[in-house]
């Protein structure tokens, strides 16, 4: 059975690979695998498709023969048989045996996929509306990964780039050939992390951690998307995994750590209002504009406007509070855990001085730090 499955898989893979190279840009099959699990799934799928194709040809060959020959217009007289216990038993038992032949290789892949033991490194993946956060537990690096396709390309006012909707500002970087365990969770609603070429998909469930693993066989960039409906911008939170050599990975970690030190220094500085507004606009575009819109007008009925809102034109402490802690029962997330003190100060200042809001006041990183309270300080990330 095993060798038969392997043979069929290889034949299928060969046929499909040939058609794939000819029509690579269309893609009639699963993406070219870049990990062993993805390779196993690819072969399993080919094998099952071939079996299905065989059954289809036999059953519908018989049906179409009958449609041609057993018709009234060619003078065929109807027979009157309507049961045959032997035949009925045979076509109950044979499918059962065929199914067992499919179940055995499938079960082996399930068991392999589920075995997350002995990882070389572990990364915590968190889904947010609408971005991904990656915490490298072994190397103490944390990044957020947001769609980097410009809004102009989506609206059609600019030509679309090669990796339209499948590009991010900060890709997940992993070393090649290492067993990587992902701890997947979500911050707000359900999301699902999927990179097809790596054969890794897992729902991200708020309040629970689930784990999967992958081991990339080759260096390269692999792209995927969120695949669990998570609200308005579900289609706009891609995943990019850069698989690099061990040395490149070490260099990347060192660079990220250096960046974190610089960013942490910002949290103790005092900024000019103009500086904060400039920085805040970028933070706003990356974190707020999806709901509240670039023009601050929100979406009536779904997401409130910030321009002219009570919060953004009221006491600054309340404004900081809602950005830090979110609003229960709505889609407004608590950004305290995601953004640094400097970024929150900047975005609050921007919101109070942009559009129709001419408040003229500013929040400083130190204000944010005290608003978090002493205990929350430690929980805030050093950098974003």
């Amino acid at each position, binding site marked *: 059975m095993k060798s038969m499955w392997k043979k069929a898989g290889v034949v299928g893979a060969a046929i499909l690979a040939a058609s794939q190279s000819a029509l690579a840009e269309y893609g*009639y*099959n*699963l993406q070219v695998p870049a990990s062993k699990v*993805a390779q196993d*799934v690819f072969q*399993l*799928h080919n094998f*099952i498709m071939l079996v*299905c194709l065989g059954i289809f040809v036999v*059953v519908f060959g*018989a*049906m179409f023969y*009958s*449609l041609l020959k*057993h*018709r*009234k217009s060619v003078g*065929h007289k*109807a*027979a*009157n*048989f*309507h*049961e045959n216990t032997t035949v*009925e038993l045979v*076509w*109950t038992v044979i*499918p*059962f045996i065929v*199914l067992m032949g499919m*179940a055995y290789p*499938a*079960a082996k892949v*399930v068991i392999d996929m*589920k075995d997350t033991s002995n990882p070389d490194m572990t990364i915590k993946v968190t889904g947010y509306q609408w971005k991904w956060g990656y915490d490298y537990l072994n190397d103490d690096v944390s990044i957020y990964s947001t769609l980097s396709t410009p809004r102009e390309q*989506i609206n*059609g006012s600019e030509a679309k780039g*090669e990796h*339209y*909707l*499948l590009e991010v500002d900060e890709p997940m970087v992993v070393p090649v050939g290492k067993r990587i365990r992902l701890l997947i969770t979500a911050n707000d*609603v359900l999301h*699902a992390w999927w990179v097809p070429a790596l054969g890794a*998909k897992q729902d991200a*469930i*708020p*309040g*629970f951690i*689930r784990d999967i693993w992958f081991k990339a066989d080759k260096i390269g960039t692999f792209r995927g*998307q969120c695949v669990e*409906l998570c*609200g*308005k911008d*579900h*289609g*706009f939170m891609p995943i990019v995994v850069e698989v690099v050599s061990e040395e490149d990975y070490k260099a990347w970690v060192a660079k990220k750590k250096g960046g974190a030190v610089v960013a942490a220094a910002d949290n103790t500085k005092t900024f000019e209002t103009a500086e904060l507004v400039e920085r805040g606009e970028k933070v706003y575009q990356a974190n707020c504009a999806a709901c509240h819109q670039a023009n601050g007008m929100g979406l009536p*009925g*779904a997401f409130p406007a910030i321009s002219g809102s009570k919060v953004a034109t009221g006491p600054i402490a309340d404004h900081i509070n809602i950005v830090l802690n979110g609003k229960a*029962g709505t*889609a407004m997330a608590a950004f305290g855990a995601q953004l640094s003190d400097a970024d929150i100060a900047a975005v609050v200042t921007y919101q109070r001085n942009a559009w129709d809001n001419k408040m003229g006041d500013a929040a400083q990183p130190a204000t944010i730090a005290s608003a978090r309270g002493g205990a929350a300080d430690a929980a805030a990330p050093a950098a974003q």
Partner: protein
Amino acid sequence: MSDAAHAHDDHGHHAHPTGMMRWLTTTNHKDIGSLYLFFALFMLFVAGSMALLIRAELFQPGLQLVHPDFFNQLTTMHGLIMIFGVIMPAFSGFANWQVPLMLGAPDMAFPRMNNWAFWLLPVAGFFLLVSFWLPGGAVAGGWTMYPPLFIQGGISYDLTILAVHIMGLSSIMGSINIITTILNMRAPGLTLMKMPLFVWTWLITAYLLIATMPVLAGAVTMLLTDRNFGTHFFNAAGGGDPVMFQHIFWFFAHPEVYILILPAFGIVSQVIPTFARKPLFGYASMVYATASIAVLSFIVWAHHMFTVGMPVTAQLFFMFSTMLIAVPTGVKVFNWVATMWKGSMTFETPMLFAIAFVCLFTIGGFSGLVLAIAPVDIQLHDTYYVVAHFHYVLVSGALFAIFAGIYYWLPKWTGYMYNETLGKWHFWLSVIGMNIVFFPMHFLGLAGMPRRIPDYALQFTEFNQIATVGAFIFGFSQLILLIVVMKAIKGGEKATAQVWEGAEGLEWTVPSPAPYHTFETAPVVK
């Protein structure tokens, strides 16, 4: 359809209300059957228009026509309305018209409850549709209503929960009526194992409905209290679990899948023997296969959730149990082919739709088998492959069987033959259009396009364009159905009582159109 005039001809001593009041107060199974069918036809065009808007937006990458939030409202409402407002009411319409006629019963067991079961539906439909104009728009969390996303929405989410409750109530009342009618009102001599297969499939479907609708009601009630009364059934922060909703929901929704297909099996099992002029092959095994599918439907639900991260044993159990469903389903397909084998076939429109059903439903069955294989499903879950799969079983499956049934029984209902040329046009445009829409979606899913997205990466463009063209062909060809039905109501060639040369069963012993009251004296079978 038999109108009030008939009623007066046949039964002048009854004082029947006329106009709108006639339809509001009717307790006649034929009237109520027609109401269900017209409601389903209307909703087919409503939810179909939403599908066309979705496909128009997806014709090219980028956002052109609709905002992402409105796009999510369209996919959600398209799903909810097609399931609860089109397929289920259409099958209820068939049950109301045909079950008493096929059993030799004068009417349904509970005529007043029958009236109520129908008139709840337009109320629920109104609540669903009006939510588009409420603040925040209609429900946008998917027809599966998964929390926590469902908890975030506005007032229309509560209204949708109410609508689901009302539709569930309607289904349960309809099911009680159907079960009671079938078990108690069969003509003398008509034993259970002599019943037409359509009646058998509806009997089993009605039991599935009674078993699962309360489960859905429970799930949405928990959503309602989580949303409004501070409970935390599905909120981890309060000790709940969002995945628990999925378990409860799919414990309802997998049997629901068979609720949407078993009556289709029944219709096709009536149509094929008629036009093959040969009795149904393996009647008893058809009954047992239907019952096994129904039983199995309760132990496979978690195959909709292979990516939530279940233990390996659960993954294996649900994979094996799901694969097992292929056995009874295979038996059915083999039986239909064996019924055609050595028959004397003609190819009127009902037969064409039935043959397309057997062939294309099987493609949906095969993609279902591919999806049952857990590791493959993990790659394909929530992609367009799944969209292709369930549209093959629900469009070329359930909907094509409904079309077959409409053409098959329309002469019995109206007394006039439908226009065969238009019927054939409807068939060929539907079957070609349907395949152009949904076949390329298999490739899109395999290549990695997620479902429920309003915009997509450039490599998915060609197949999306093909699908959109197909969608417009398929969508607009349904107008032919409307014309055929309207013409057959107005007039045409008079239909005989027998209608079809090879038709057998009690419904063909009454004149066409079926009089307003039939079988006031029970016929005797054999």
